[in-house]
């Protein structure tokens, strides 16, 4: 009987220690959380990936032999007229949506960081579920705009195989869209965790690394919007 009681106590103590370890942020010898170091290193490598794609786009810019072209009209040898293909108003709207999604994401992080703070309780500022879902919806809306853009380009005669502009444009924006898709799935995962067990202050790092990824996707779009869409 005494042995059983001791074994039960030991088991509880083990569970407590196990829980305790998981509750704490995993610091490295630098005193920084290793997840944050990893995400910043990853973002650094992603900078190189996107700069290589942007470089390729810029090098091929203006070297397409046949149209459609991004900013100029083109008449095919058969006499068919192609208007400039980029739709600036639609892309401006999608850019605004992505910028707003970054605001929603930072407010989601703020809400999780202040869990238990009376000033954030029972109001929208502390509602992490709301901000996470708003971010995911904004991200999905951006993807909807991109799907519309890609579809209309194909209907207008521009595919990834049409010319150098098509190849470099679809590769660059397609890679960015894939990153946004991963971001939306990541945010929805956090939303599911928040819905099922509730995110607490201890989960701040989980939301923080997702937010860093999401903001990075936003800054990449800031560069793409200017270099691809606005500069002729």
């Amino acid at each position, binding site marked *: 009987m005494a042995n059983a009681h001791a074994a039960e106590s030991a088991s509880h103590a083990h569970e407590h220690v196990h829980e305790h370890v998981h509750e704490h942020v995993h610091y490295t010898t630098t005193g920084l959380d290793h997840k944050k170091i990893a995400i910043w290193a990853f973002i*650094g490598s992603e900078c190189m990936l996107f*700069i290589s794609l942007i470089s390729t786009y*810029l090098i091929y810019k203006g070297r397409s032999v046949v149209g459609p072209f991004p900013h100029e009209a083109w008449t095919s040898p058969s006499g068919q007229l192609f208007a400039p293909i980029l739709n600036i108003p639609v892309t401006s709207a999608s850019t605004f949506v992505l910028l707003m999604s970054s605001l929603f994401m930072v407010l989601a992080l703020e809400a999780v960081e202040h869990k238990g703070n009376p000033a954030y309780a029972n109001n929208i500022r502390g509602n992490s579920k709301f901000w996470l879902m708003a971010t995911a919806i904004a991200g999905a809306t951006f993807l909807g705009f991109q799907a519309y853009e890609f579809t209309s380009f194909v209907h207008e005669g521009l595919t990834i195989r049409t010319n150098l502009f098509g190849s470099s444009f679809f590769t660059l924006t397609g890679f960015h869209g894939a990153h946004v898709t991963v971001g939306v799935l990541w945010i929805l995962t956090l939303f599911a965790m928040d819905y099922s067990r509730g995110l607490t202050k201890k989960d701040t790092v989980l939301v923080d690394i997702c937010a860093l990824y999401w903001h990075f996707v936003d800054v990449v779009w800031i560069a793409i919007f200017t270099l691809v869409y606005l500069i002729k």
Partner: protein
Amino acid sequence: MTDHEHADHAHEHPTWKQYKWVALILTLITVVEVWVYYTPFKDSPLFVPTLLIMSAVKFAIVVLFYMHLRYDHKLFKALFTGPLIIAICTLTALMFLFGKFSL
């Protein structure tokens, strides 16, 4: 500074109000970028530098405030700016190599 003081320092963030101001500034810059695109200024030689500066300002604002790099540890700053500088140097070199820029 101890490890945990480092970690505490890393948790300094802008306020809710500042986040909203940042969003407003980003939106205004985007509106100006698009507006400039539809004006005769787009034929000016200053058009491209102006757009690049506005884009760089937006980039910096998001990185400094939304990604908290302004408040974060210098190792995070190094992990981001180091590869970014290498990437921008590579981009510039490729532009010269393929005749997009010339001296």
